[in-house]
């Protein structure tokens, strides 16, 4: 008659039993020579298979070749990333430089006369009437908490608003 624990030997060796099942198989193995012999044979097979694997030779030349290829791959990766990020940073820097340049040309264009008019107003919508007709430069309106600029030379009028400190002098 076959031992009822026979089917539990392999799951026991493969560590697939619950702690209580494991304990009962351990106790059984101590008292059943047949199951103990089976467990020993399975472990002997595993050990032998392990030894057969260790006898499979690995060529030294192949190991060196693949090791050097791994080094190349690992070293190359950060370089590729740096190049990618470098291009992105250069692009952003270029765009930022263009924006600064355009703004500086519009706001700080040198003129022969004092061509810009600064008018204090209470809101951006106030009409600017005090601007001398002879002056062709941009109109700048400054008030508490805003600044407006209007280019009246071209049809493409534009306006900028942003918060300023109260004591700004123009």
């Amino acid at each position: 008659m076959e031992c009822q624990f026979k089917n539990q030997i392999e799951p026991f060796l493969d560590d697939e039993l619950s702690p209580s099942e494991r304990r009962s198989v351990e106790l059984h193995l101590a008292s059943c020579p047949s199951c103990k012999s089976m467990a020993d044979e399975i472990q002997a097979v595993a050990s032998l298979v392990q030894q057969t694997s260790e006898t499979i030779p690995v060529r030294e030349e192949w190991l060196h070749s693949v090791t050097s290829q791994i080094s190349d791959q690992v070293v190359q990766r950060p370089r590729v990333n740096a190049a990618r990020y470098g291009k992105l940073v250069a692009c952003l820097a270029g765009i930022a430089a263009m924006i600064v340049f355009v703004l500086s040309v519009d706001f700080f264009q040198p003129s022969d006369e004092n061509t810009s008019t600064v008018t204090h107003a209470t809101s951006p919508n106030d009409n600017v009437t005090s601007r001398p007709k002879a002056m062709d430069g941009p109109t700048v309106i400054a008030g508490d908490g805003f600044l407006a600029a209007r280019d009246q030379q071209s049809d493409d009028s534009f306006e900028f608003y942003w918060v300023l400190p109260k004591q700004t002098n123009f």
Partner: protein
Amino acid sequence: MREKLVELLPSVYRFAFRLCGHQHTAEDLAQDAILQACRRTETSPNERALRIWLFRVVTNRWIDICRKNQNAKFDASHSVENVHTSEITAPESVELNETIFLAMQIMNRLPERQRTVLHLSACEQMSNSEIAGILNITTDAVKSSLSIARAEMRNMLSKAEK
């Protein structure tokens, strides 16, 4: 990462060799998997996860090769010829060499699934669920194959002893 992959090279190669039984094919399979891991892995995974992933890549690659080339199959004779049993330096080396050689021959006669399941369980200490993931089969299929392979090895070894 580099050190981990270099350490894993022999075991990946030996697993590939168990699959195909041919040195050059095993080298190609292992090299492909290792270099794929180099390119793919952004962060450093734990060694066990990396090992499982590499074995899975090797298995899938071998399946692809077998599908494309009907002549590609396990080369048992080449596999035994390449074994370096003479390198074992145990005191009872002659007897052990014979046993290992015999075990290798028995193992090579096993069907591919049983052979690879036994290798992963005995040599790589993989759990049944991990083996199932690598070979893309169910855990029950792993248990069944492992049980048959063990029984076959035990029977053949005990016959040889008699």
